[in-house]
């Protein structure tokens, strides 16, 4: 049976932690999470990992495999050439708890601040498929936070103080484009969620396991809505004169 060389991060802090190497027998159809489970089961029972569904649907098993933010349960071992070392590290952008487990609770705090779905008082709750199709794409999100991890505004510039991150632009796009929602979140997006910090470099879209077109379908349309309210001089002029657009 072929063997994979797994280099896995171990430790309770990034400074004091280290990579440990394990040899894991590879079977057909195996994913990186299986290899981690093998290590836990047979080589090192103290290895910590968060997971739940092993079906790429719960969003728990996010990690960095060979430096690339990935779901461990969706990353097949046969993607890597035989004999190549496979490194598995915790998400870089969030505080480490232990080994492969990070504390992603900052995301839940951000989420709480978003003005929630607010239906129009006279809402007719039947609507057409074409009106909800855009929103359905965003509802596929499994909150794996891989997009948050890879986004350089959070990862490299550490602007958690001003920037909500792509996952929450996806959520807000779903609210803003909802046919029954009555709120306008343009100001919140600009001044509190830091939409302008995104430079649309699309890494969030590249890593999203649900293949949500985060940048093209959520972020850019939101940026355009913010332009309507705050940057387009002609529209702003008309709005001043005639009130609501």
């Amino acid at each position, binding site marked *: 049976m072929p063997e994979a060389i797994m280099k896995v991060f171990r430790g309770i802090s990034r400074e004091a932690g280290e990579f440990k190497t394990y040899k894991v027998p590879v079977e057909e159809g195996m994913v990186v999470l299986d290899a981690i489970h093998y290590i836990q089961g047979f080589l090192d029972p103290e290895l910590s990992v968060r997971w739940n569904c092993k079906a790429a649907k719960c969003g728990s098993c996010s990690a960095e495999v060979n430096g690339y933010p990935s779901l461990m349960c969706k990353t097949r071992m046969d993607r890597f050439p035989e004999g190549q070392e496979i490194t598995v590290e915790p998400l870089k952008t*969030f505080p480490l708890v232990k080994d492969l487990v990070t504390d992603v609770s900052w995301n839940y705090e951000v989420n709480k601040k978003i003005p929630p779905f607010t239906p129009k008082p006279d809402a007719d709750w039947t*609507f057409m498929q074409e009106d909800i199709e855009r929103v359905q794409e965003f509802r596929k999100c499994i909150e794996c936070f891989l997009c948050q991890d890879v986004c350089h505004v959070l990862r490299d*510039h550490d602007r958690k103080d001003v920037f909500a991150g792509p996952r929450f632009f996806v959520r807000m796009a779903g609210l803003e484009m909802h046919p029954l929602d009555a709120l306008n979140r343009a100001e919140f997006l600009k001044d509190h*969620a830091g939409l302008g910090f*995104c*430079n*649309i470099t699309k890494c969030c879209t590249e890593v999203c396991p649900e293949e949500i077109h985060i940048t093209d379908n959520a972020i850019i349309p939101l940026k355009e809505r913010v332009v309507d309210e705050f940057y387009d001089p002609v529209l702003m002029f008309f709005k001043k004169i005639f009130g609501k657009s």
Partner: protein
Amino acid sequence: MNKVEIAVAPEKLGATARNDNWWVEPALVATGFTIFIVYATWRGLFEPQYFEWGPYLSPFYSPRILLDWWHWSPAILVLWVPAGFRATCYYYRKAYYRAYFLDPPACAVGHLGGDKYCGETTFPFVLQNLHRYFFYLAVAVLAFLWYDAIRAFDFHGQFGVGVGSLIFLANVVFLSFYTFGCHAYRHLVGGKLDCFSCSARTKTRFKIWSVVTKLNEHHMLWAWVSLFSVGFADLYVRLLAGHVITDIRLF
């Protein structure tokens, strides 16, 4: 957003655990852009004598604006429109923020520069928000290019087809696919609506939005194809006007 413990130390440019060839894409993009920018600048600024041959008017010199007091190349009066349109285009922004500004050079790879990052919130990048105005101007220029492309089939009042006519036609089609797949246009035409089925007008806008969305899905492709075709159409005119090649008349 509330401040949390800093989990990441700012990393150096290029720092990554990725072991694939992540640098290939930014390197190719930077090379492609640089070649085009150098070529277009040279052609636009220093070669105003080679702007036309027969029925073909170089797209860099169209529309032809002649002003008495303007002593420099007439291309300068036009080129700022497509240049501004592309420089503020959402695709090009992604491409040059990565390839030129290296912020980030690729995903999960350390960036260039310090910690003063402001994205598109401050001058000059906040001006990217005016992209839609460049779209309006670009549509006006595109109308002239369509006129030129039709004129490229007119050989002294006779309908004819030269290799150049086909190059001009292909170019203007690619440019249209690029221009009308614009994100700002997608928003203006229907993306800004929350309800597509609410009235006859919004239903029509939904139909246009759907077509624009189809073009928009391949916006990067059309950005590159049209960049190449516009440069090639100009080069073709340049070579004809400089008597380096001759146009083949197909009929």
